[in-house]
């Protein structure tokens, strides 16, 4: 049994409380679109904003929290910085809630310039929203730097990036999680710095009246937004590399192929966001092609190597299947499935047709909900189970995993079908020409509630262990 005084136990309640609320917001949006609560249409866009920013932020900090926790096996991150990150995140969330619930701020999670200055919401809510992101960005940047510092205290940069594997040497042995985390954190700095620049430009316009270039602002927004989501996924995958071997009874080591595949992510991932600007005619053409190539190059090698590695790890192994290993396996599958949806969407010829349809929410929900969220929840269960050693209720665990999986894939299927049938995204209510979107939304809402039921079952198993670990 492990000591339960770790920082990760402080992060878990943040996820346990916010995640179901954010699921309900998602279900609310689909219920408005599905004709169940059309009279609440006025709240659709504020809730879309909160749901989007909330989910992205929640799973990013959750993935940071789990890698900070697993790094303690090898290095020593600062507990003070971890506390600053925790309380900074809480302050950021409070500011976010204030801007949305009190100011009905509704610029969406992209808050694309110049929309924040053009909406019907009061100017103070825009300021509070931007302050919220500033606080979150600043503390996460400090946290990222501290985690890198911790890695740097033990490994050299070439070691942490696995370059000696690429050079043909197998010593020193570096866990693949260290390699993936290092790459993700380095790129994470770039994403967070772009957020800092973006916020500075917003504030300059707000307080000094200096106008901004919409193209520059959009580039910075997606540099930050796309990259941070991408990296959150990779941080979750790092956890899979670290703990799946415990359940398979086999090691999952770094080697040349793993090192090459993950080094493809380094820096190339910073150019993948260009695919968000395919529809912008003013974006220079070469950047569009770079966007497509980078989208493929940064995702395909790491995904294929990881999936083959995971399958080989599990194949003919004496697997111990419990909630952790099931969710890890499903999480990697969700990453792959969502990734295929993303790659289809990042293909220029396809994107021009799918970009403004529900296909886009379909793919990012797939790898976030059935990918990253499953990986994080798996890690949480792993930690809580190790901390308490309580007997596991396999029936409840499987029921939870199955219910969440069916619920999640039901949500995705409705999005994918709606996208394939040209239902546009970001419509609160569908006009008569798009009436078929209403049915997809209604069934999507039911599936979201099914997912919520599965999560409550998960809380029954993992939440109980968390409580025992903290209270006991």
């Amino acid at each position: 049994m492990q000591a339960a005084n770790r920082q990760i136990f402080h992060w878990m309640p943040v996820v346990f409380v916010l995640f179901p609320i954010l699921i309900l917001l998602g279900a609310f949006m689909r219920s408005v679109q599905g004709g169940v609560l059309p009279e609440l249409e006025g709240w659709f866009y504020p809730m879309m904003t909160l749901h989007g920013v909330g989910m992205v932020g929640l799973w990013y900090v959750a993935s940071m929290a789990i890698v900070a926790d697993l790094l303690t096996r090898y290095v020593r991150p600062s507990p003070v910085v971890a506390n600053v990150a925790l309380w900074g995140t809480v302050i950021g969330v409070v500011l976010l809630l204030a801007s949305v619930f009190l100011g009905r701020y509704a610029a969406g999670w992209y808050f694309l310039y110049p929309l924040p200055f053009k909406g019907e919401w009061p100017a103070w809510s825009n300021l509070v929203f931007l302050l919220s992101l500033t606080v979150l960005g600043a503390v996460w940047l400090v946290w990222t730097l501290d985690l890198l510092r911790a890695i740097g205290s033990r490994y050299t940069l070439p070691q942490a990036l696995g370059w000696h594997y690429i050079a043909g040497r197998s010593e020193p042995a570096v866990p693949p999680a260290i390699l993936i985390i290092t790459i993700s954190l380095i790129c994470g700095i770039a994403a967070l710095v772009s957020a800092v620049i973006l916020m500075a430009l917003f504030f300059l316009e707000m307080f000094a009246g200096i106008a901004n270039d919409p193209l520059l602002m959009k580039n910075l927004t997606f540099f930050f937004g796309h990259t941070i989501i991408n990296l959150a996924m990779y941080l979750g995958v790092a956890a899979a590399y670290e703990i799946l071997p415990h359940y398979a009874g086999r090691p999952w080591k770094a080697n040349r192929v793993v090192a090459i595949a993950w080094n493809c992510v380094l820096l190339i991932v910073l150019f993948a966001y260009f695919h968000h600007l395919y529809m912008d005619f003013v974006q220079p053409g070469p950047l569009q092609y770079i966007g497509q190539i980078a989208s493929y190059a940064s995702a395909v090698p790491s995904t294929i190597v990881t999936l083959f590695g995971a399958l080989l790890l599990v194949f003919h192994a004496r697997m111990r299947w419990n909630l952790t290993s099931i969710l890890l396996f499903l999480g990697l599958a969700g990453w792959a499935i969502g990734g295929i949806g993303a790659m289809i969407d990042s293909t220029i010829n396809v994107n021009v047709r799918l970009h403004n349809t529900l296909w886009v929410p379909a793919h990012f929900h797939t790898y976030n909900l059935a990918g990253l969220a499953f990986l994080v929840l798996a890690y949480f269960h792993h930690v809580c189970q190790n901390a308490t050693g309580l007997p596991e209720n396999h029936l409840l665990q499987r029921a939870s995993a199955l219910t969440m999986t069916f619920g999640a894939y039901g949500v995705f299927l409705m999005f994918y079908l709606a996208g394939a049938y040209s239902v546009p995204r970001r419509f609160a209510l569908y006009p008569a020409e798009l009436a078929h979107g209403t049915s997809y939304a209604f069934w999507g809402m039911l599936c979201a509630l099914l997912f919520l039921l599965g999560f409550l079952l998960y809380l029954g198993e993992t939440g109980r262990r968390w409580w025992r670990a903290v209270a006991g």
Partner: protein
Amino acid sequence: MRRLTLLLLPALLAQATALAAAEMAPPPATRAEARLEGRAVPDIPLRLADGHERMLSDLGQGRTLLVTFFYRRCAGVCLPFLEWINNAATEVGGLGSDYQILALSFDEADTVADLRAQARVFGLLENRNWHFAVTDQAALADITGALDFWYRRQGSSNQYDHGSLLVAVRDGRVIRALSGGPGQTQRLRELVWELRGRVASYYAVDKEPMLRCLDFDPRTGALRLDWGMLLLVAPALTSLAAAMAVFMPRRHRPSLLRSKS
């Protein structure tokens, strides 16, 4: 006091930059222009400066036709406006191969001889891609009504109070419109570039930004990276620098083997 000045200086500079940028900002495309786009243009009969009679649809011949209005005796904007169009077409090129230009008189008093005189003033009499024309009263009412072009005779003088308009017509419909005087040289050049089949990666914004990703020179058609692009490179460079700094070799770094033991 010096400290206060140092603190206030960046804010004052920022404010001054913003004011300067606002003064330089081009006027945004008007709603009136946007309303014209896509509108059908009546196919009216024309009498050209060479004496021939043609229909409007005959002039474009599958290419875009730039249509503007003028009158020979105008003491105001008409002649500078025509000269402005002529200069832009000369600078950007493409006249004849990508588009033709029609200057249509809205003064009933203008004759074919007046048109020839006008064309001669600009040295365009022999230019087969520039057309000066008059039309009958009903047709004039049709086309000016369709394009929301207004003009009104000033009392008993031979002068008109009128606006300035340039529309690009293709397949009988307006594809672009430009209203206002010759001050919008950049927009006119962009329009001509568009007619040449090139989409200018440039866009009007309400206030001229301090930093842009790109800048488009409509005189040469060149697209240049602007200083704003540095802000897109800065995050990647910062992350690399941070990584180098964090992983900078330390003298007393414990070796892997020693830390394992």
